[in-house]
């Protein structure tokens, strides 16, 4: 056999670079979930009564919920009583200088610049370690422009009226069981408020890190952008390599008023579990944006490479006339990973438009499902939708499924939907190899080209990071 030929036998890559853990003294709640735990949590965070009342209603609802099983996922039952609902570094820091050096070192190792000297230019960062925010950079500079960027906990203390007005207005605690659980026990998260007419001068970025074992991370993000204002926000996520699973059930709510624009980007690289499917993060996230005002725009861009299980559908409710919703997604699964992801575009206003571009890449024995809903309400005349879902398979044992749902109640909507499934092509790889490129680099180039439409939507500062992540992720997917 000619050695020049090289079979596409997938094998698994166990290298997960952010997989280290950090030793810090933690203040951790005993495992278990009850009304008392919620009262304790709320008291610890010194919350106003409206928030405790809301948490308790959510908990009451959660107790009546059954965990949904419609997703194309195999999930071992989760024992919610075995998990701890709060973990925070013991030492409380008033400023970055006072933050535990171990935590500083952990973020430095992850390449997240938090110290005053080493800030990433043009990007403000909020760093969340387990259940609490440990540092937010550039806060003062932003507040000079009237932009509020802080931890959710701080927002509850400083701007309770804005929080009360918008909390749960886009994702009700009754939306789904994980949203109910999050509402009951969420510990921290990020808060952004951009006042009328302000173009947020910096990229805002939140970095989530799960460190503690057997702890759930339930963060909540709320972004409110007033009339004629814009913001671009990016979240990044990692967790240590642990053989027990970690639950991450986040809720993200976006509100865009008249002519406001929100760009929300995610690079999700939670620990995916071992090659045999042990451990990893269960990522059950509810993300939704409300285009409340006319001509508003919400754009979701996500690059999903981590987590053992991903269950996530960033969606847009297009209520304001002529508002625009966009969803650009790359989801890469390998090993035993499972991803069930997609979007919902709910067209309520006249002349609303949406664009969906989804690229799924499955390698190893992974499962990658796209699930989409395009809904056009009876009075939403003049709607236009473009949807494109492409799946690429690497190797013989991966699975890709697409469930597009289209539900239209008007007679003038223009809806285009395209879907393709392909296998990474031997001819394409050979074409590149025959010009001196190794097989691994060739796979990277082909996949990166395949995802280009989506990568182009990411903020410039993060494009290079994603290319690096892609090459790390694809390492070892071909033999």
């Amino acid at each position, binding site marked *: 056999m000619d*050695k020049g030929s090289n079979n596409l036998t997938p094998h698994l890559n166990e290298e997960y670079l952010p997989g280290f853990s950090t030793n810090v003294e933690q203040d951790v709640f005993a495992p278990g979930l009850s009304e008392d735990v919620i009262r304790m949590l709320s008291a610890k965070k010194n919350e106003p009564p409206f928030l405790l009342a809301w948490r308790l209603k959510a908990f009451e609802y959660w107790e009546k919920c059954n965990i949904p099983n419609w997703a194309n996922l195999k999930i071992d039952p989760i024992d919610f009583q075995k998990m701890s609902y709060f973990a925070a570094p013991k030492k409380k820091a008033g400023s970055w200088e006072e933050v535990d050096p171990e935590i500083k070192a952990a973020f430095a190792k992850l390449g997240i610049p938090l110290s005053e000297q080493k800030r990433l230019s043009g990007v403000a960062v909020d760093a969340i370690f387990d259940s609490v925010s440990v540092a937010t950079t550039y806060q003062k500079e932003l507040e000079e422009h009237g932009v509020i960027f802080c931890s959710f906990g701080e927002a509850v203390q400083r701007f309770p009226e804005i929080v009360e007005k918008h909390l749960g207005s886009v994702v009700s605690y009754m939306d789904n069981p994980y949203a109910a659980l999050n509402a009951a026990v969420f510990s921290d998260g990020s808060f952004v408020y951009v006042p009328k007419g302000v173009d947020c001068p910096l990229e805002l970025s939140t970095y989530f890190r799960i460190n503690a074992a057997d702890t759930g991370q339930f963060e909540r993000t709320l972004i409110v952008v007033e009339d004629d204002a814009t913001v671009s926000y990016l979240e990044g996520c990692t967790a240590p390599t642990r053989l027990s699973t970690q639950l991450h059930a986040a809720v993200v709510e976006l509100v865009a008023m008249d002519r406001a624009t929100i760009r929300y980007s995610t690079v999700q690289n939670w620990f995916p579990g071992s090659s045999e499917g042990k451990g990893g993060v269960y990522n059950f996230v509810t993300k939704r944006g409300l285009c409340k005002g006319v001509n508003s725009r919400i754009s979701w861009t996500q690059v999903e490479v981590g987590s053992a299980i991903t269950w996530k559908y960033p969606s847009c409710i297009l209520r304001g006339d002529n508002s625009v919703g966009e969803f650009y997604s790359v989801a890469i699964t390998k090993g035993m990973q499972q991803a069930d992801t997609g979007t919902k575009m709910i067209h309520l206003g006249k002349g609303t438009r949406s664009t969906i571009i989804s690229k799924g890449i499955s390698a190893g024995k992974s499962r990658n499902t796209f699930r989409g809903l395009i809904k056009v309400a009876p009075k939403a005349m003049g709607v236009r939708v473009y949807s494109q879902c492409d799946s690429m398979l690497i190797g013989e044992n991966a699975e890709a499924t697409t469930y597009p749902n289209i539900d239209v109640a008007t007679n003038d909507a223009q809806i285009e939907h395209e879907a393709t499934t392909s296998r990474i092509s031997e001819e394409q790889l050979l074409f590149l190899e025959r010009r001196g490129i190794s097989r691994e680099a060739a796979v990277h180039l082909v996949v990166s080209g395949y995802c280009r439409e989506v990568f182009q939507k990411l903020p410039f500062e993060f494009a290079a990071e994603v290319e690096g992540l892609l090459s790390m992720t694809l390492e070892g997917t071909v033999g």
Partner: protein
Amino acid sequence: MLKVNNLCVQAGDHPILQGVSFEILPGELIVLTGENGSGKSTLCSVLSGGGELSVTADEMTFQNKDLQNMLSNERALQGLFVSSQEPVVIAGLSWRVFLQAALQERQKSLGEEPLEVSEINTKLEKLIELVRMPSETLDRGINEGHSGGEKKRMEMLQWLLFAPKLSVLDELDAGLDQTAKKQLAELIGKAKNSERSILVVSHDAAWADSLQADQKWTMQGGKLKKQA
């Protein structure tokens, strides 16, 4: 440069090449013609490596190194270039990104510093003009929306860019218009020197004759015949 002795290639049970032997010396220009299905393209493909064919040979060496122990990319890095007879489309991957990656890979294999991006771009702009393609092409996906002739021009560009020690031009002239064909013939004449050898495979006997080759070979039924 290249030595092949008793090369046999089969696709399943079907023999395609039956004991092909030849040698290409440094500085030689050789023209190979033959009917469709005679095995010319199989020979080119086997030289570039990869694919599903079963290959045996008593000897197949490039610059005294055993080709059968070299992956396709290693062969290319050593200076063996085989043009694609049917270039593939790779949507979204731009020519510029691909060619930059390939050039940097070669620098690395030579143990040299990476090239400046501006230097690569200047080179690419010059070559794209030479093969008479619009410079925007560099930022389009590989062969995306290209006609047959345009694909061949981009193969010409790659050949010129890599300036290989041994060039195997597999029907690079097919699909080109008369002007481009003439240009290709001139470029082949220029490229040939004491250190670079060229094997031209073509269907067009008249065009091949115009090349003033050192040797003319024909392929017939999987066997190679050398003419005086």
